[in-house]
């Protein structure tokens, strides 16, 4: 018996660094992911789909998002069980519990509200979020007093952070992993389908507790997004002890969110940057966060600017990570000669170069290390001087 485990669709999500046109593409891709996982479910013979929380980005998504979500759900051939998560809890404003959703949602879509649901011979327990700030371990409550019953297979669908998993200090709502593992060991639970982490992650030692991750990436720091899990529990009564669960990772995501850090100090480095940018696959579905550090001549800087401009045109989104980027422009004699500047113009250029370096020079003179993490200290005047130099380069080089 197989079923498909997914989570964190966050339909209706937007990112500010996406241009409106790129945002539209991203939004469509997320709906497409729903349809894709429906196809995956059919291909892999899944009996049903569980969505472990955060189906919708918020409880205030527009009507169109709800309508499109229901439309996409209609294309999933098997029953879909939706668990309300922290983004779409079952509070008074809940969309999943609203009249409109009930009307629009296809009949094979069901919202898990904490009552055990029987589907395809499996008992599905659920720990839905009923508010944005639960005060207890919802998963533990859902499994309270659970005892193993032979022939009964249970799956728990929950959402939230698991204890001992990167959280700074456990809150009241943190899911107690040890307790769940005990239940799994005892045979009271056959699988725990978690949501909230956007990267596909196996939890604990049992091999039956997983975060499926989001089917499309949502941020640059995710390790392994874009997947759904096909969980195979085997056939009932296939001997005792029961067979291990086989969990298959299937990629459905089209977009990718990347982070790249480069140091540039020479023409070769700029060439490398060019190559890196050019070699990105599927640029229109890539959101790149770039940090560039280094000292360049005017010509090199001009080249880098041009490369970035070109890349921004092609990529879904290009962000230069301001906080981690620093490009210092230091015009050299070659630059100035190349420009054919003499006399006062050259003087002016050299003066600007000095100003551009002023902060770093002062820092060095004072015994500093020339900045932290390769970032020289800057002042507004130095930045202005650098920009003026780039402009000078452009105006002078125009022939």
């Amino acid at each position, binding site marked *: 018996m197989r079923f498909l485990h997914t989570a964190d669709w966050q339909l*209706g*999500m*937007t*990112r*500010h*660094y*996406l*241009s*409106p046109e790129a*945002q539209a593409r991203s939004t469509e891709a997320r709906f497409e992911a729903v349809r894709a996982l429906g196809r995956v479910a059919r291909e892999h013979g899944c009996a049903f789909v569980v969505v472990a929380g955060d189906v919708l*980005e*918020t*409880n*205030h*998504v*527009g*009507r*169109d*998002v709800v309508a499109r979500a229901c439309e996409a759900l209609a294309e999933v051939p098997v029953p879909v069980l939706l668990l309300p998560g922290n983004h779409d809890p079952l*509070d*008074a*404003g809940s*969309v999943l519990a*609203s*009249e*409109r959703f009930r009307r629009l949602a296809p009949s094979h879509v069901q919202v898990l509200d904490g009552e055990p649901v029987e589907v395809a011979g499996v008992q599905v327990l659920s720990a839905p979020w009923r*508010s944005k700030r639960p005060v207890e371990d919802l998963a533990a409550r859902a499994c309270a007093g659970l005892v193993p019953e032979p022939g009964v297979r249970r799956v728990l669908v929950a959402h939230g952070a698991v204890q001992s998993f990167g959280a700074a200090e456990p809150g009241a709502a943190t899911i107690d992993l040890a307790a769940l593992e005990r239940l799994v060991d005892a045979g009271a639970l056959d699988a725990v389908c978690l949501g909230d982490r956007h990267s596909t992650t196996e939890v604990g030692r049992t091999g039956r507790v997983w975060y499926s991750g989001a089917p499309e990436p949502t941020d640059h720091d995710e390790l392994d997004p874009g997947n759904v899990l096909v969980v195979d529990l085997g056939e009932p009564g296939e001997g005792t002890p029961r067979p291990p669960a086989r969990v298959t990772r299937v990629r459905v995501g089209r977009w990718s969110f990347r982070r790249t850090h480069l140091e540039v100090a020479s023409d070769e480095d700029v060439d490398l940057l060019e190559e890196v940018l050019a070699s990105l696959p599927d640029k229109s579905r890539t959101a790149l966060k770039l940090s560039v550090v280094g000292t360049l001549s005017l010509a090199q800087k001009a080249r880098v600017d041009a490369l970035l401009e070109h890349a921004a045109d092609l990529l879904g989104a290009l962000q230069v990570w301001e906080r981690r980027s620093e490009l210092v422009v230091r015009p050299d004699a070659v630059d100035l000669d190349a420009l*054919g*500047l*003499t*006399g*006062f*113009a*050259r*003087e*002016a*250029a050299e*003066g*600007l170069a000095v100003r551009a370096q002023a902060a770093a020079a002062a820092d060095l003179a004072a015994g500093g290390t020339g900045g932290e993490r390769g970032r020289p200290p800057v002042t507004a005047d130095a*930045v*202005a*001087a650098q*920009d*003026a*130099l*780039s*402009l*000078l380069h452009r*105006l*002078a080089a*125009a022939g």
Partner: protein
Amino acid sequence: MRLLRLRLESFRGVAMHEVELAPTGVTVVVGDNEVGKTSLVDALDLLLDQYDSSRHKRVRQTQPVGQDAPTVVEAEVRAGRYRFTYRKQFHRQPSTRLVVHEPAPEQHAGREAHDRALEILGEEVDLPLWRALRLQQGVPLDQADLEARTSLAQALDATVVESVGGEREETLVARAEAEFGRYWTPTGAVRTEGRALEADVEEGARRVSALEASVAEVERVVDALGRVRADTAAERGAGERDVAALALAEARVEALREVVRDAERTRAELAAASSAHALAEQRVAGRAASRGRLVEVVEEVAERRGTAEVAAQDEREAHERVAAAGTVLDEALEEQARRRSLRAAVARQEEQARESAEVDRSRGLVSRHDEALAAASAAERALAGHRVDDAALAEVESLHRAWTAASARAGSAAPVVLLRGPGERVITAEGEHVVGDDPLELRLAGGSWFEVGGIRVEGRPTPEQQRAEADERRCAAALAASCHDLGVEGLDGAMAGAHARRAAQAEQDRARAALQQLAAGEDLGAARRRVTRWEEAHPPSDDRAAPGRPADGSSAEGADAGAVTRAAAEQAARALRGAEEALVAAGQEVATATSRHESARAALDLAGRRLVEARAAADAAATRAQLVEAELERERAGAGDEVLRARVAASADDLAAAERRAAGAADAVREAGVEGAEVEAVVARQRRDDGRKRLRALEDESGALAAVLEARGGEGLVEELAEARAAHERARRACVSWERRATAARTLRDALDEARREAHLAYVEPLRAQLQRLAAHVFGADVRVDVGPDLRIASRTLGGVTVPFEQLSSGAREQLAVLGRLACAMLVSGGSGVPVLLDDALGYSDPQRLDGMARALAAAGESCQVVVLTCVPERYRLVAGASTQRLRG
């Protein structure tokens, strides 16, 4: 560049000119006006600029008029390392030849020559500078436009570290300026685009905040709704509990109802017994009252009867008193009548006496009046006798005067004759006169004559005399007539008559006044009538009424008689008063008696009434007594007194029993706690109702909040917020980017401007210094010259006074213009230097300045080639080391 030799043939009006110029130093080319000095310069220009085949106006103008000869211009020029001869022939058989002598021989012809020449010159010479350093005749006196002349700049640069910069740099500056202009206004303010971007950012931030607030609002509504729903559920549970409690209480109340009913029944019974007992007691009381009433009534009858007896007695006594008062009244009336008749008689007497006195008085009055009348008539008659009144007298007097005047006139008109002759006789109309010693004066009035000595002398009156005498006669006649009319003799008579009349008049006035006096205040008519009446009533023989009066009515006796009658009248009046007083007293007596009689009668009436009343009351009381008695009898027939008393006792017993039963039932109720149960039921009902109200309120609230959510939810606020944030971020980045670019543009422009200005300032200095050195020759050692960054002379300071160039005198400007060019040439002297060409300059300069200019020229000539064209060689006489060339026409 150095001009070595220049040759013109058939150039305009010039047949042939050839000049050799010193390559360094001052060459003064002297020639008269129109000899063709300027042509030299023009020819050089043509040589360099125009093709030999050019039909340009400038070229055509050089063609000598009326000659068919070609125009030739030939120049030997040193330019840098080149020395060449360049020859062009215009108009006829145009040709161009270039022969390069140094560094390497070359020969070119035609267009090739032209191009090569320009090439060489372009390589070695700053041609624009060459044009700038000219000071040409006819061209406005102006400073050389030296700015950014490359050779000058480079020359200046030689002394300065920085380079002024050439075309490239200037273009850069222009582009930087243009870039600056994209972001900033000329005054240095941010362009609207930048401000618009800032505004966008602000707008975006505002939108984000607004949307965040809206989303937060929705969140609050969600929370509120959750709370309300929870409250509603709790309220519903509580409501159910309330309903159950109410049911319980009501059941209890129902169970206790039986006890309550029982208590009610005993209370009703008690009420009935109580009222029955009260009724019986009432009856007994009523019987006793009846008996009492009967006794009262009988007593009353007796009392009333007694009262009636007393009233009868009173009435009888009143009767007697009335009769006595009547008697007294009658007596008083009789007395009064008697006194009345007495008074009437006395009154008659008095009246008569009074009348008599009055008549006497009247009589006296009448007689006096009559006397006065008679006197008045006598006076009147007397007056009538005198006719001469004042007017008449006046007339007589005037007539007399007139007569007198007329006679005087006549007399004077008449001649007067003096008769002398004493003792002679004269006979006049009057008679005979003997003239005495004195002459006799005779007036010969009209008609008068005298005779003397047998001569009768008559006067023949003149007309005038006749007139005067006529006048006199007339006047005399008038006077006489008037006197006669008046009955008097002459004036004296008139006067006497008037006097008499006046006296008579006075007499009459007196008489009339007396009459008036008498008549005043008296009605004489009435007095006469009274007298008449009296005399009719009392003929004189009758003495009784009055003491009488004498028949002649003399007033003397009448007065006495009047006194007597007056005394009698007074006496009578006194008697009358006495009679009246007596009458009045009698009247008072009558009144008193009458009132007493009246009051007696009134008392009688009162007593009568009282008697009647008393009797009636007694009768009524008797009747009432009978009725009461009858009533009592009847009652007793119904139920005797004893029976009633028995009934009361019985009902009292019943009452006591009912009270005991009722008390017992109430105790039972209290013990059963019915009251408490009822209170509880009421409270439970109240609670239930309150709970229902609260539930309804919560349901309403819940419905409202849900509606809000429904509406808001569909708005897609969160998406809008995300989009607003994205837009804000984009706007912010765009703004930052714009600001950075704007700052870059400004930084670059400012840096370039700064560098340029410094460089310019740096290289202006050599030129300025050179110029100042030259100017010292002309203006003195303490002169100071200021040059602006555009290399133009800005001002000259002499003796501490700074004057801007434009405000200097023509002479000073001319001098400085020349000096500026010389200074420039001296700086640029060298490979790319050019000659300074002065065509007829320094016309405004005085000899002293010329002296200085000569020294300056000489100084320049040490390193440059200076060519001076002039027709006044004296001007440049003082230029040391100058060579002179003459042009002959």
